[in-house]
């Protein structure tokens, strides 16, 4: 089995066609053994033989080997990393995607039980929050292509949720530009008083930002600047780990 999987791993975009002799040599296996593994892989639909050269290449079945991984959904991929972030920081870690003008919170992991019934404690996986006044929402808006971002903002009510909510489209636009250049969004009591958050972008295999990882601090005295100072690094690292896990490759950026 090890050797069969090793054969599969020999095929790359740079080396898409391989013959039995080549494979046998590369893997230090006898030709009959190599042939046996290769025919097994052919019969299962992972390899196919090219007519002209009689060499082998990956077949469509190869895509299905990773199907379960692709279908797992962002949440499953991010879960262990959110746990690590929450436990190390003692704060709440969240994951969200953009869903039109709102963000859809996909997961939420609390670092420690908050003594005060915190102001954001009603947020659950599956909750929707406005994008313009949350850190994760601002990250997701910031990386949209300009026309889509403009259109969405023009459709938003920008309702005042607390004293610090950004209610002007111009101010929001300015801040989103900063977010895109810095890669970090800060929510300074904009959704709720007594609640601050920071968030960083998660990229998918195409390199586009498709989700955000956030860290929320609420209850007691919260200070946005302190949160940035303490947790910026771990939030970036978590977002990068989740990105890699869903197929983003750093070298392509």
């Amino acid at each position: 089995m090890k050797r069969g999987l090793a054969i599969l791993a020999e095929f790359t975009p740079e080396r898409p066609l391989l013959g039995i002799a080549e494979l046998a040599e590369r893997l230090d296996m006898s030709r009959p053994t190599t042939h046996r593994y290769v025919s097994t892989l052919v019969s299962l639909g992972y390899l196919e033989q090219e007519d002209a050269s009689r060499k082998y290449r990956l077949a469509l079945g190869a895509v299905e080997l990773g199907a379960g991984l692709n279908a797992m959904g962002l949440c499953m991929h991010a879960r262990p990393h959110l746990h690590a972030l929450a436990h190390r920081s003692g704060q709440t870690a969240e994951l969200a995607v953009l869903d039109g003008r709102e963000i859809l919170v996909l997961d939420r992991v609390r670092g420690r039980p908050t003594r005060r019934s915190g102001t954001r404690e009603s947020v659950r996986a599956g909750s929707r929050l406005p994008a313009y006044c949350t850190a994760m929402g601002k990250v997701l808006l910031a990386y949209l292509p300009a026309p889509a971002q403009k259109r969405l903002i023009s459709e938003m009510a920008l309702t005042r949720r607390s004293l610090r909510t950004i209610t002007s489209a111009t101010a929001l636009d300015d801040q989103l530009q900063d977010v895109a250049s810095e890669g970090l969004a800060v929510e300074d009591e904009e959704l709720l008083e007594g609640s601050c958050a920071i968030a960083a972008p998660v990229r998918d295999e195409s390199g586009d930002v498709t989700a955000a990882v956030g860290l929320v601090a609420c209850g007691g005295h919260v200070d946005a600047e302190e949160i940035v100072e303490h947790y910026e690094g771990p939030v970036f690292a978590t977002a990068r780990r989740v990105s890699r896990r869903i197929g983003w490759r750093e070298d392509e950026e």
Partner: protein
Amino acid sequence: MEKIAASMVAPDSAPAGNRTSRSLVYGLTLLRQFTAEQPVRGIAELAEILNVSRPTAHRYASTCLELGYLEQAPMRRYRLARRAAEPGLALLGSLPLVRRAQPVLRELRRRSGRTASLATLDGADVLYLQRLCGFAPGQYELDRGLGAGTRRPARHTAAGEALLARSGEHTHRPRRIRDDGLVVVDGGLRADARGLAVAIQTPGERTYAIEATVPAHAMSVGDATGELGDALRAAAAVLQRRPAAPRATQRVAS
């Protein structure tokens, strides 16, 4: 069909004889048990599915773990590791049209906010090779559990229909293909999904289709075929062109 059967069900049905490595059949069959519905599995259930003893199932799982195809999940269970996607990515990276399609799909998603995907025929099925999930309302939930490697009977989805129409295999049943080549199919990937697709055929390569998927309730067929249909057809036209002229490629990327 035979190969699907072989890898989807118990290895007993896989080709027998000394030209087959049974351990490889078991190992790959084990990996295929990790799905969207069952992303995490334990030894007991794997042993039952493979119809082997628990120590045997454990041995196969340990090898997969050691090779990096599986990783440990809580409660002594397993889930797929990133490595499992690599053969698929290697295949996609070696198909010229798939490579050219990447920036085009990305642009389609960026412009429309809708899920953009690339698919091809595999026997009677349509196999999705790439899916980029959109950000417009309802797209995430619509796309949940779908990804590269999703397989459906070809007649059930827009991409499948577009591919069948191009392969000349649609002789019975009136299909939902329009004069401009756009195919609209509801409920294929998911009950509430509306798919729009166009086939792409370039010399010397297999036929592909690009599909945009929208929540059926969010967009009337008229609206879907309007702006989104135009974007889809434009994307297909870009891919349909021969890649020879570098200038054309630049236009794609901009």
